[in-house]
Each structure stands twice: as C-alpha cells, then as structure tokens.
C-alpha cells in the first residue's frame, strides 16, 4: 500500500488508472442502483458480453474498440428492450442468445485480425493500467451524460422503475424511458469495461448498489453510497494489486465480492437483533 502511494506520485499511468476507477464508480453508483432495484442484472450481463462483438469488429476494421463497444452495447440494449416491450416475458432466452452470439462474433473477428491479438485478455478482464490518458475525457463525458439524463428525468425513471403500469396511466412514455434506461446501462457497461473488462462488469454494476441497499432506503441515497463504495473498491483494488503485481480488475472484484458477503451477513444479523430487541421491549 505504501509502495503504491509513493509510486502514485511518480507514475502518470497510475494516476490515470486511479482517475479511471473514480470515473467508472459514478456510473456503477447511479446506474447500478437502477440495475439492482429493477432487477435487470441478467440483462446488463447480456449487454456486457455482446459488447465483445463490437470490439472485435472495430479491431478488425482498424477502428477504436471503445467506439465498437459503445455501438454494440447500445444496439443490444435496444434489441433486448424492444423484445421485452413487445413480447413481455421472453427476453431471457434472447439475452442468453445475444450474450453468446456477441462473444462468438467478437472472437471470430479477433482471430481473423492480422497481428498480435493480446488485447483479448484485456477486453475480457480489463486492464486499468493501460487506459490511455486521453480516454479519461471520454469517460468523464459519458459520466456527464449519465448524471444529467438521470437528473433531468429523475421522476420518470423513478416512476417506471417503481410501477410501470401506474407510470403509463400518468402519461409517462414508458417504452421510451425504459429503452433510455437500458441505453444508460449500456453506456455504463462500456465505462466499466475499461476498468474491469466485460466478464467482471456485472459485479461492479450490482455489488456496490446491492450493499448500499442493505443500509439506505431511498433511491438517491443508494446512488450516493454506491458511488462512494465503487470508488473505494476500485481505488483499493488498484492499490492492493500494485505491490504483489496482481491484475487490478480481479482484485477489485474480489474486494467488492467480499464486502458484499460480509455486508449481507451483518445486515441480516443487525436486523434480527433489532427485531429481537424490539420484541423484548414490550
């Protein structure tokens, strides 16, 4: 840890990595909260994995993989969302299919891309140390889009997350906001892929918000706490992985996972103890 702090002053790539983690945690707090309470984690997982198709294609055609990821994520979000809206309950089969098809397409493209294909591992598991400094601006821009959209349409997002039928009766364009929410999930997935890769994304998208839900009982509060937790997990993961030269992404995920299990157990225990104390007090 001490070695990390002193290296942080010396190496620009570490500073970039730290900032990338902090920028990603905004997405995981704000949108992760919606993913957890609307129970669309599987959908988010499908979007994340289908992204490999876009990255592989971008690589093959010599474009920025980040751009390919963004396009693929938004396309699969719209596809999954449209199917759910049109056919009500059949989306899980489609998500599973898109999950696998996206990865298959990506791997075919990467296999046929001439030259050294070492990027596959960093697509799958992320490599926060390789985030180019210029990409930070792009990440900050995506964060701004996320936060502004949620702030402007907070009432509508809350309404469609809480009770779609009632939202429709109040004249909220439910289909539009549902698809918009899924697009925001797609943007967040792409943000987080920079940090932990597309396989581990689902953990950063759900665990901080899930931990927050153990203690906070408002949507806004959950967003704030989940963002802070995300910042702690990514920074701590980066710091702890630096000394022993571990991959940073998996270290972050293990910290987040450990915190989640611990929190689930203690919050259960606390609730039970509180209930017993209340029952005894009468």
């Amino acid at each position: 840890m001490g070695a990390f702090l002193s290296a942080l002053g010396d190496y620009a790539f570490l500073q970039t990595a730290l900032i990338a983690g902090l920028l990603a945690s905004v997405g995981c707090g704000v949108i992760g909260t919606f993913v957890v309470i609307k129970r669309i984690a599987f959908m988010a997982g499908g979007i994340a994995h289908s992204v490999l198709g876009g990255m592989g294609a971008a690589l093959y055609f010599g474009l920025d993989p980040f751009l390919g990821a963004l396009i693929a994520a938004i396309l699969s979000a719209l596809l999954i969302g449209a199917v759910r809206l049109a056919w009500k309950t059949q989306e899980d089969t489609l998500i599973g299919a898109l999950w696998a098809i996206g990865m298959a397409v990506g791997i075919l493209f990467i296999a046929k891309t001439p030259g050294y294909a070492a990027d596959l591992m960093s697509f799958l598991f992320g490599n926060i140390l390789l985030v180019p400094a210029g990409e930070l601006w792009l990440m900050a821009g995506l964060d701004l889009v996320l936060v502004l959209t949620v702030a402007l349409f907070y009432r509508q997002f809350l309404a469609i997350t809480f009770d779609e039928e009632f939202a429709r009766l109040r004249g909220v364009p439910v289909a539009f906001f549902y698809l918009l929410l899924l697009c925001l999930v797609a943007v967040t997935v792409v943000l987080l892929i920079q940090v932990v890769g597309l396989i581990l994304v689902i953990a950063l998208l759900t665990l901080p918000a899930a931990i927050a839900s153990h203690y906070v009982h408002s949507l806004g509060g959950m967003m704030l706490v989940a963002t802070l937790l995300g910042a702690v997990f990514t920074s701590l993961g980066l710091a702890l992985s630096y000394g022993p030269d571990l991959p940073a992404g998996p270290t972050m995920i293990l910290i987040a996972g450990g915190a989640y299990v611990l929190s689930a157990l203690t919050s259960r225990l606390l609730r039970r103890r509180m209930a017993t104390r209340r029952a005894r007090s009468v």
Partner: protein
Amino acid sequence: MARASSRVVGADPVIRIRDLSFSYGDTLVLEHVDLSIERGEFVGLIGPNAGGKSTLLRLILGLLDPQIGEISVLGRPPGQMSRQVGYVPQFPSFPRDFPISVEQVVTMGRLGIGSFLGWYRSADREIVRRALSEVDASDLAGRPIGTLSGGQLQRVLMARALAGDPEILILDEPTANIDQRGETSIFDLLARLNARLTILVVSHDIAFISDYVSRVACLNRTLKCHPTTSVDGDAIHQLYGDHVRLIDHSH
C-alpha cells in the same frame, strides 16, 4: 338498462361504453357490454372471478384497447384521459422492498402535471400532504413502503390516486386484503369522496357495497345494472348460479 334516474346529474356521462366485446385469444371475456356512468355516481361493479371485471377496468383505463365497441371517458378515448382518472389497483404492481417512502409514492400521483423535466414542486408536496390527510395516513408519510400493512397500503394507494386531482376514481377490490373494520372505514371514506368524485368500485362483497353505492353493475361476461334496492335473490342467482344466496345483514 336501468339508470339511477332520480339523480340530478351532468348532461354527458363521464364513462360511456357501447356494445363492447373483448376476448383473450379464444376466450370471450366481455360480450356486448353497455354501461353509462353519470357524473357524481357511485357505481359498484360485481361479478364472479374471471367474469371480466378487471378486463373492463383495464379497458376503461386505456391499458387495453377494445376489439369491438366503443368506450369514451370524459368524452374522449380512454388512453387520452387516464390522467383525469385515479386508479387504485387490487395488487400493488411494485416490489415491497423498493427503497421508497410513502410520501414519495404518493408524490408519483403528481406525474404528468406541470413541467416534464426536473423535480416536483413545493405545490406538489402540499397536494400530497392534503391527499395523505384525506385518507387518514399523514402519520405514514415517512415510512418505507415495505413496512405497511395491507390496509395502510390501500390508503396510501388511494392517496396516490387522489394526488393527481382526478374527476373519476376507479378502485379494484379495495377491501380484498383488509378486515371488516377496515372495510367499513374505506367505504365511509369513499362515500365522503363521492361528494366531489365519480366513483367506480369493483368488489366481491355484494351485500356490503350495496349499503354504499348508488347503483350496482353485475358483470359475468354480459353486464346487467340494478338500482341498489333491487339486488335481490334473483339477480344474485343469475350472476353466481345456485350456490350463492343473499343473506340479509342490515346493520
């Protein structure tokens, strides 16, 4: 069709249904239904399970589109007027562990009023406070929605409907999850609200609602209306078959 003709009411019916039929796939749920509800009426809609009550409500709310026949609500197609209708569902369609307070739930009744962007205004909050006090639930404002009992939740959902300042209030089995005492107080509340609102309430408890409503509509695929005084053994028999009899239980 019988009408509560003695009432002095507005010229146009607030809900008018003409020759409405509806089926899910092969199953015909509503057949040639005609119903007209005048401003200020308090109509009870009764009928057996799967008799089409909820389907009729969903059609009136514009959540379903009629296949044959016409519905107009306040003179317009129902989907356009859903903001003038307060709806209290039988089963809340949200997860009970959703991180939200009673006050925030009721505030959602203000959606679609005022600006599209941004947050609720202080005027909205004032209306929410009034709605909560109207249903005697002011003390619940800060509670998480998941901690309420069935009867408390029912009142909160009524406050949410009232917060939208509706002209018509539609309730689906408002007393299904609460005891007799709660039932009486909910219907007393509805009777009070009837002074300014047209009310349509679905209920399974015929004898009970006939103490309160001005007219009963009996729905079992087809619809028949009765003034409340004439809900007798014959009508019940027609609707439910042999095994249900009318038990007189005047209070």
